């Protein structure tokens, strides 16, 4: 983890859609935490898959990257890695700054 800010450049015309995207991503962290707590690896895999699919579409490639890692980690039932990835995800969402161009 670093103190740096992650800047994501998003097309101007998506400005209305991004707040809902971010809200859902924050909710997703809570759902991921709960799924890990319950050792529900199938749900973790599905959530990771969804992150992988939607992140890049909005320009948030880090969300897709983390999603792929979570999907892989869930497939391997690797709790330690998943826990670290969820921490990374929450940290990323706390630092990400959206710039509309």
């Amino acid at each position, binding site marked *: 983890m670093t103190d740096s800010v992650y800047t994501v450049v998003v097309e101007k*015309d*998506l400005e209305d*859609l991004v707040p*809902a*995207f971010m809200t*859902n991503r924050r909710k997703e962290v809570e759902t991921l935490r709960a799924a890990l707590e319950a050792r529900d690896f199938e749900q973790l895999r*599905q959530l990771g*898959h*969804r992150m*992988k*699919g*939607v*992140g*890049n*579409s*909005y320009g948030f490639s880090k969300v*897709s990257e983390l999603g792929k890692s979570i999907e892989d980690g869930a497939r391997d039932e690797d709790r330690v890695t998943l826990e670290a990835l969820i921490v990374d995800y929450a940290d990323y969402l706390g630092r990400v700054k959206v710039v509309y161009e």
Partner: protein
Amino acid sequence: MRILIIDDDENLRSLLAHYIRQEWPKAEVEEFDPLVRDMPDEQFPFGDYELIILDYMLGRGDGLEWLHEFRKRSDCPPVLFLTGAGNEIIAVRAMKAGASDYQRKQELTRERLITSIRDLTLDAAERTLSPELAARMEGHMLGERVRIPGFRILRLIGEGGMSRVYLASREGDDEPLVVKILRSEATADKNALARFMEEYALIERIKSRHVARIHGHGVSEGHAYLVMEFFDGGDLNKRLGGKASPPHEALRIFRELMFALGDIHECGILHRDLKPQNLMFRADGSLAIVDFGIAKHVDAIDRTGYGEIVGTPRYMSPEQVRGMALDLRTDIYSSGVLLYQMLAGRHLFDGETAVEVALQHLNKPAPGLVEELAQYQRLLDKLLEKDRDARFRNADEVIGFLARKFQQT
């Protein structure tokens, strides 16, 4: 136009709907959330829609199963199927189950979505309005017409000057493959046809994991074709995305490239057109060289007319720009240009025109790397020597250098 989007992700549905409404303000877009609604039953008015966009993983169901059910209905409109990247076997199954097109979700841009929708929904009269669209439709139709025993052509996935490239599958096991079909105008050109057929003959000589595997070749409906391995990992161009690679990754890829070159040079073949689009990656990260369309056996080099310039200007060796007879060292130079691009995140030379770029290989010293990458400068210098006598002579020499200087074995 009325479109139904079935996806378990609210944000993706919104985004797709937004893109569609931007392009077609009068379009009616209905979002269907499979997490809260069951699979449409026999009462569902499919006929009211001109297109369905259907995701593969629906949260509570499997998009392929839904697709099978939908296609049983006579009023089912075209279906654009969304898959995960690197999951071509699902794309193959979707196309065989009746999807009209597929898109890899992670790579789905506004342009790709709109192009696909336009291809699937516009009528013939509208298609003829755009030459670009007409050409693409011709490509789709060609894919439907050509019959290859043991294989099924599913979708046009790329077009080059000489050929079109299709996703295909092997009958029996759904293995995703690529079919390359020579364009009809090129088929009529004896030289182009000879080159295309020579590509097969050349690749067949190389038994290497670093070269795309060929599964068949021939002529169907007057069109020459090759059936080749499909690469889940895409090409180097896509992998770089206009940015630099971490140095260790750049060096790993470069070393694989040297092994690949070693294998093809050992068979007496020069590639002559190394560029990011011709370096493909498998799902396990291994690299293979494709497109031997202008490759030559060294014994046949004399048959290349003196002064004939072939290759891609950004990656050409100085001797290639001059139209001289070539040897192994031309591919070594082009590999150096690729390594520079991977390390620096930009092209070795830029210019307004192809000629301007090409001439810099003759006259302009290669730009140096930044200080943090200084340890790779000597390697690059020896790869990018304009005088080929001062360059590494072959891939083995480069591999030896890598082992000594970077402990790469």
